[in-house]
């Protein structure tokens, strides 16, 4: 008996008394997909996740944190880069995606190669083109750091610095990144008497007719993978969703992106080929090519592929797309480095 007692009192007494945080469920959003009961968000876990997100230690040369490619002011995209670059100047294959509203998604990345938010960070962490690290090395580096020595026990009951808790903390930080207070949101939720202008309303009407079959729900994506007839860039030859299951029907399909904060997430498309929204709409109107597997819904009555838009409609659509900009989110100090 005496031996057992002394074992218990040996363990360091850092008290685990977390403050639980609520992941928002905005009234106009689909339901949360992430299983929060497996990883309840706490203030301490969130703080830890934020520290990890902004810490270069997660990369091989200690200088490429997650935030390097995901900058808050641009809805956590890699501002000004068509393709993201990482350690040793390696150039990745894709345009970095915004990080927002991840709690409401069940698959991640342009091709859906990540099927759980906890596991997604393993990909950039270990990619030689991005952070070039290994989980065990990161664990070792964090174990040697006094901040992490004291923060893990505050954030997790078992206090362990291991891959499970590193990934859980990153998820907690990411889960809280909810963008739901754009002009559009306030308008649809009837808040603060916000109204849309005449032009924005015309844009909304076009959007509902021509875009919302794919850019569906108030997340503006049905979370499916589609081939939109982008001309193939032979240098990258990115086959998209095909890479995941090697199914020929998936050739050149990419995840329908959420259009939230789209005004800020330029450049556009999986390879960042379009610098402006005008370029995107010009593509929908007249740039599509038949690469053999284009979404049937994009076929026009004359057999060509595209979504016809007049110049005026493009202006109206862009005005509407800009109502998705959520300045509260883009300036939210909870997510800011300093």
């Amino acid at each position, binding site marked *: *008996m005496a031996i*057992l007692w002394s074992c218990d009192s040996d363990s360091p007494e850092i008290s685990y008394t977390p403050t639980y945080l609520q992941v928002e469920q905005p009234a106009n959003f689909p339901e949360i997909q992430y*299983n929060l*009961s*497996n*990883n309840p968000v706490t203030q301490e876990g969130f703080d830890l996740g934020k520290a990890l997100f902004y810490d270069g230690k997660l990369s091989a040369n200690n200088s490429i944190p997650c935030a390097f490619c995901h900058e808050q002011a641009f809805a956590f995209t890699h501002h000004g880069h068509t393709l993201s670059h990482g350690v040793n100047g390696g150039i990745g294959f894709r345009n970095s995606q915004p990080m927002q509203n991840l709690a409401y998604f*069940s*698959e991640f*990345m342009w091709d*859906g*190669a*990540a*099927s*759980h*938010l*906890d*596991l*997604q960070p*393993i*990909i950039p962490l*270990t*990619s030689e083109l991005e952070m070039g690290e*290994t*989980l*065990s090395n990161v*664990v070792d580096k964090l174990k040697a750091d006094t901040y992490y020595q004291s923060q893990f026990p505050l954030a997790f009951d078992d206090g*362990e610095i*291991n*891959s*499970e*808790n*590193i*990934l*859980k903390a990153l*998820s907690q930080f990411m889960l809280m990144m909810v963008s739901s207070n754009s002009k559009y949101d306030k308008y649809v939720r009837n808040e603060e008497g916000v109204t849309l202008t005449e032009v924005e309303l015309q844009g909304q009407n076009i959007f509902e007719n021509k875009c919302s079959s794919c850019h569906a729900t108030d997340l503006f994506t049905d979370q499916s993978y589609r081939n939109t007839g982008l001309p193939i860039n032979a240098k990258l030859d990115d086959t998209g969703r095909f*890479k*995941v*299951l*090697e*199914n020929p029907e998936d050739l050149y399909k990419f995840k329908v992106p959420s259009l939230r904060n789209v005004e800020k997430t330029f450049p556009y498309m999986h390879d960042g080929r379009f610098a402006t929204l005008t370029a995107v709409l010009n593509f929908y109107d007249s740039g599509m090519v038949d690469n053999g597997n284009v979404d049937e819904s994009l076929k026009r009555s004359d057999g060509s592929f595209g979504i016809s838009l007049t110049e005026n409609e493009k202006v109206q659509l862009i005005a509407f797309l800009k109502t998705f900009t959520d300045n509260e989110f883009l300036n939210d100090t909870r997510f800011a480095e300093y």
Partner: protein
Amino acid sequence: MEVRTTSYHLSIIFIQMKITKIFITLLLCATVISCSNDDNMVESLVGQTGDLIVKFDNGVGDQDLIFDVSYDKSSNESYKLTSVKYIVSNIELTKSDGSTFMYPEIENAFIVDEADANNAGEIYITLNDVPAGDYTKISFGVGIDQERFQKGADGQGNLLAEAQEKEMLWSWATGFRFIRLDGVYSDATVTDEALNIHMGSVGTSLDNYREVSLDAPNTVIVREASTPEVHIKADIAKVFDGQTSVLFADGYNQVHTDETTTPVIADNLMGIFMIHHVHNE
């Protein structure tokens, strides 16, 4: 496959651990008492736990598996391997009365790596705190089941880091490689072409986890003072010539995430294992 929900399951494990502690204490008392009693008492297994060793022994047909040695397969194809690894999880033991013991989930995933084998070519997995009993069957999964995978990081401890160290995690997508065979193959037309079998489930879209149930040729007797060794032979030849015979020349030299080839390999894997013998001390 029993249905498990984490928090529930973990708390059970926790309770089990507590109970184990109490029993160990009782056991110590019991030992002290039995010391003063020379008569043989009826053996009571209640609360008694012991260890069990599972030995994996990879071979090719009736030969030992040795790296860089050429092995013949069907259709005049041959191959040489430089790495052989697979994941074994959800080990469950069945007693002669039909009752079962599932090893605690958090520790119940193992990477069997031929490179870790002793000189006899055996890889050891030790199960601790197994309830004493007479077991007749062992079952396990090859790979990681969907339920565990969908928990993300939860309940996985350092498994993800270990899997990554062993190169059993994909880096371009999230997922485990359930089996990893690397080497070269030759046939009538090609010599030493790359051979890479990196089969796993693909997210939640494609489930390649398979379960195996093996009868023991003799009873596996677990006691506090007796650690049995279950010697499992794995015939790597059956990965290619199992339920289905596959041809490297048909694309089975590169198996990664393809929806048609990966399930064939997964099904073949179910048939590679057998319990060769059991040592009881």
